């Protein structure tokens, strides 16, 4: 199961930038694939997600918990086995993910929720 992959589905170039940041920090490349909804209707975005996932398994990291990126990702996950969806993608959850890919998509999604949530803090003045 070491080939679990992460697909980041976002508006504009958010996904691309996150992939570049993870590579810059960890040196790990190829674990994450960016998908942008730029210029996409529902069908085109579904196709981009499908191309990025390939044979799977995969975790879909989505920017917002609603909207075209989310609806397309959730629909894809409903139609395919071995796909989990996490919303509110951030750099912290991706950094954790690339080092822990020997788990099931569901387990990786739970880890992402945990790592991503813990990274959101308000710094004391």
């Amino acid at each position, binding site marked *: 199961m070491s080939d679990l992959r992460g697909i980041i589905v976002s508006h504009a170039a958010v996904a691309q930038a996150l992939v570049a940041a993870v590579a810059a920090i960890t040196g790990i490349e190829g674990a994450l694939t960016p998908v942008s909804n730029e*210029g996409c*209707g*529902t*069908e085109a975005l579904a196709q981009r997600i499908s191309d990025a996932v390939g044979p799977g398994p995969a975790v879909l990291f989505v920017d917002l*918990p*609603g909207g*075209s990126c989310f*609806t397309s990702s959730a629909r894809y996950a409903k139609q395919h086995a071995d796909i989990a969806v996490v919303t509110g993608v951030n750099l912290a959850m991706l950094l954790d993910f690339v080092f822990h890919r020997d788990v099931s998509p569901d387990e990786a999604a739970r880890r992402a929720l945990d790592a991503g949530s813990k990274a959101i803090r308000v710094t004391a003045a």
Partner: protein
Amino acid sequence: MTLALYRIDDRLIHGQVVVGWGQPLNVTFIVLVDDEVRSSDWEQDLYRMGVPPTIEVRFASVDEAAHDLSTWEADSRVGILLVGDIDTAVALAERAPQVRRFNVGGVHHRTGRTERLRFVYLSEDEAKKLRALSARGVEVTAQDVPTARPVPVAEFT
């Protein structure tokens, strides 16, 4: 107030609609007119997830929408009516003559369509249907976000 926006957008409910138009218009309800979504609870849950709790979402078939349109137009709140494609817009306008305008907000690339605007791709048949809609007195313009210029139908069909 009324239905402030009649919009054709193949993404249906998404950020541009909820935030881009919803905020400046102070929208408190969205009517999604789509026969397929209307018949699927799962799809309805999916579209509802992208909407803050302050905005009510209603789902309607074309027939239901034609029937209820006057009620929504008479609503004291501000709403947006959404359809996913040109055929649905035409079907609604045919059954409900009170439809006076349609905003083309997003019709994206697909085989057989050519680029008309950055966010509007149409087949010849679709362009013809929009011109016919306009000829019948429905004001048709293309505009993705409120800050953009509304492009008259003649310029993109």
